[in-house]
């Protein structure tokens, strides 16, 4: 494979993943409502595009398989074959096979044998393989792209493709297809055949008749990757055919959900990561310049640096934005998993998702997928009961699993909830006692939530028996470990018979946060500003003692536990000394829990680049990472959630 082709391999891989997702989504909605044939078109077109792309890449077996999928869907489209469970299953299996084949062929391998699924697809597409569906009134009129009544104005659209594109024929094909959905394609220059065989330079012309305005045409085409420019001429105008109510109805029905049309550029993850690192370095250098400017008291320099400061902040914001990815990107594979799971177990489960557009840093998102899988799986089994059990318990036969994301300040919360059997807290307690994790007499000291968290202890599993699905039971300990590693937290809520709710909270971005630099006499630490409620003026700090522990009394009379930084980091002896006269007191607030932190120095407020700490330090509480300061020295980042206690 030439270098050019290998550069395009990545583009192909990610685009093919999108098409496969679109096909899967289409199949699932078709399964949900077999009378609504709208998704058929999406599936058909997705398979068709995959075929073209795979052929362009020289992946012949993938092209062949997707061609067979396309042919089968064509019979459905033409109403020669009905939609039934067998069809959906077959197509879903074919999707899996395509995925395997692509990964096989893109690595130049020939391990994967798709001949069985190809044969199944061919057999299923045979006339008479299934009775054609009766033409009932609920079904879609199965018109192909040529509409019965051409309508709208005629446009001459000149499309120019990026000169760097190596998938020109595919891009052209996508453009023509898209125009086909907007109206009818009357002619192309050169011929469609020549375009398909890539016998054109960079531009080609499509004559299209459509009711859509010219700017909509332009927009739609520019939404396709690698289309450099679009020119729409309306000089070929023909009288518009008046549309009656009926006509508009049939027109709107032909509009099928289109594949992603947002204007995007594909950038390799390596470049994004490199950009973030470079911006991080820039932030550090800026801090250094700031110091120098201040120390020299050079007004011109101070001014220049403040300009630099603004630009860096904006740049940083933009770069961080490029890394934000909607959680839908990982959520979208779950409907299929839940479907398969429910089918295998003979359970009835509705799967709902919400907050798909909530965005999260892509590093965090990539790490979030694996922990959600076991949660969702546990919700399906053992969570949701069998139909009989549910009915016996007076619950509706269909259970539900809900996966949702929401944003709260600088945190994103992902919740997996179900209305299944829930967890019996007392049984967990008994089990924990049996395992020697706790002693039975201590039950009083544990809240129900504390007991639930025991399930997050390594090796603790609530599953009575191993099943095909929960298997060895990827336990809650794995989930918790992973989430905490990402700087997040896990919480559990349950009610016996009413279901279980697991909430994962994650920081929005992992890379750069504003922080307050504080210090002991010898060392500087960074405290994330998101947790700093206020810095108390020294003359307002009133120290008192409650239960022999020092506390600070705030203006409003509330009493907050007090801690000394030099003691927390082990620089001075003792655990809970009273804040001293010269200390500054910082009020730290994490989810409503407040603590007063006495620091010996207040240094400055600064953006810090969070760098992970080596695994050698894993398990040390109170630290969230490290950062490099303007002078090149290292400051540890305090983790306000685990610092106290």
């Amino acid at each position: 494979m030439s270098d050019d082709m290998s550069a395009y391999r990545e583009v192909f891989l990610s685009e093919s993943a999108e098409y496969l997702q679109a096909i899967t989504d289409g199949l699932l909605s078709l399964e949900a409502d077999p009378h609504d044939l709208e998704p058929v078109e999406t599936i058909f077109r997705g398979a068709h595009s995959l075929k073209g792309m795979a052929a362009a890449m020289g992946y012949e077996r993938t092209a062949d398989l997707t061609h067979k999928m396309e042919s089968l869907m064509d019979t459905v489209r033409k109403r020669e074959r009905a939609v039934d469970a067998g069809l959906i299953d077959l197509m879903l299996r074919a999707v899996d096979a395509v995925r395997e084949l692509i990964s096989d062929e893109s690595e130049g391998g020939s391990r994967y044998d798709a001949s069985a699924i190809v044969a199944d697809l061919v057999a299923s597409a045979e006339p008479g393989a299934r009775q054609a569906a009766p033409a009932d009134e609920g079904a879609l009129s199965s018109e192909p792209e040529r509409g019965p009544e051409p309508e709208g104005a005629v446009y001459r659209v000149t499309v120019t493709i990026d000169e760097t594109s190596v998938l020109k024929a595919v891009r052209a094909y996508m453009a023509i297809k898209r125009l086909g959905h907007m109206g009818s394609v009357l002619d192309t220059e050169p011929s469609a055949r020549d375009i398909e065989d890539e016998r054109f330079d960079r531009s080609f012309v499509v004559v299209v008749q459509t009711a859509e305005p010219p700017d909509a045409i332009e927009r739609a085409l520019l939404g396709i990757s690698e289309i450099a420019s679009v020119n729409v001429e309306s000089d070929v105008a023909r009288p518009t055919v008046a549309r009656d109510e009926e006509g508009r109805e049939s027109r709107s029905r032909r509009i099928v959900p289109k594949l992603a049309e947002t204007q995007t550029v594909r950038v390799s993850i390596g470049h994004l990561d490199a950009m973030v690192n470079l911006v991080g370095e820039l932030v550090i250098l800026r801090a250094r310049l700031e110091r120098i400017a201040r120390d020299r008291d050079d007004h011109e320099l101070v001014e220049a640096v403040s300009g630099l400061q603004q630009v860096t902040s904006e740049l940083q914001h933009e770069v961080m934005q490029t890394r934000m990815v909607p959680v839908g990107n990982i959520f979208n594979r779950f409907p299929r998993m839940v479907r398969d799971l429910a089918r295998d177990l003979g359970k009835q489960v509705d799967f709902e998702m919400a907050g798909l557009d909530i965005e999260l840093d892509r590093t965090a998102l990539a790490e979030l997928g694996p922990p959600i899988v076991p949660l969702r799986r546990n919700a399906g089994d053992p969570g949701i009961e069998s139909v009989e059990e549910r009915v016996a318990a007076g619950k509706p036969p269909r259970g539900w699993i809900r996966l949702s994301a929401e944003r709260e300040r600088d945190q994103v919360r992902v919740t997996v909830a179900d209305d299944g059997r829930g967890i019996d807290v007392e049984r967990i307690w008994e089990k924990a006692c049996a395992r020697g994790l706790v002693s039975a007499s201590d039950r009083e000291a544990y809240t129900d939530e504390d007991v639930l968290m025991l399930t997050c202890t390594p090796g603790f599993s609530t599953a009575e028996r191993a099943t095909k699905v929960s298997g060895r039971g990827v336990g809650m300990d794995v989930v918790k470990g992973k989430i905490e590693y990402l700087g997040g937290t896990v919480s559990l809520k349950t009610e016996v018979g009413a279901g279980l709710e697991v909430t994962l909270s994650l920081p929005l971005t992992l890379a750069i946060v504003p922080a307050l630099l504080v210090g002991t006499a010898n060392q500087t630490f960074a405290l994330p500003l998101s947790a700093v409620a206020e810095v108390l003026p020294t003359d307002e700090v009133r120290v008192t003692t409650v239960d022999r522990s020092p506390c600070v009394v705030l203006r409003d009379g509330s009493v907050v536990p007090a801690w000394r930084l030099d003691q927390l980091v082990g620089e001075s002896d003792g655990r809970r000394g009273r804040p001293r006269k010269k200390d500054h007191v910082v009020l730290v607030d994490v989810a409503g829990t407040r603590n007063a932190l006495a620091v010996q120095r207040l240094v400055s407020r600064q953006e810090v680049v969070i760098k992970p700490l080596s695994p050698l330090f894993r398990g040390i509480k109170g630290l969230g990472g490290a950062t490099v300061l303007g002078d090149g020295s290292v400051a540890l980042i305090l983790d306000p959630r685990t610092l106290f206690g």
Partner: protein
Amino acid sequence: MEGTSSDAVRQVVLFTLGEEEFGLPVERVTSIIRYEKPTPVPHAPDFVEGVINLRGQIVPVVDLGRRLFGEGSSRSGSSRVIVTETTAGLVGFAVDSAHEVARMSAAAVMQTPESLASSELADAFEGVADHEGRLVMLLVPDKLVPPAVFVSVTDAEEASADV
């Protein structure tokens, strides 16, 4: 001792701790830098001196003398940090001096002496090599750091494999 592949040559970074000479495989060493006092990390294991900024990366520094023998030595101008790739990521090993990269044949490596093999870190010693008449103890970088404690990684990977 009969070497099975006596012509195999390995390259070893030589360094000293007190009076003794040690070696780390050169392919694992990413750089050797002058020792500077690391930023201490509260509540870290006692053999970890702290962290340093290595061209923007935060790297832990392990007092190798303390790690191996339970006692550190005082730092001087000849002290070095040997930055090494390990199972726990990049780790800097603080040593008294690092002077050369030596080529030695695999056949020159002998069994670890009994006295060392009995220590808690027996696995960290690969063997002893005779280099130009001096004895060099060869170390295994991955065994110098605590084993990965994140046991669940395999499980998580399996879980993600069927996504």
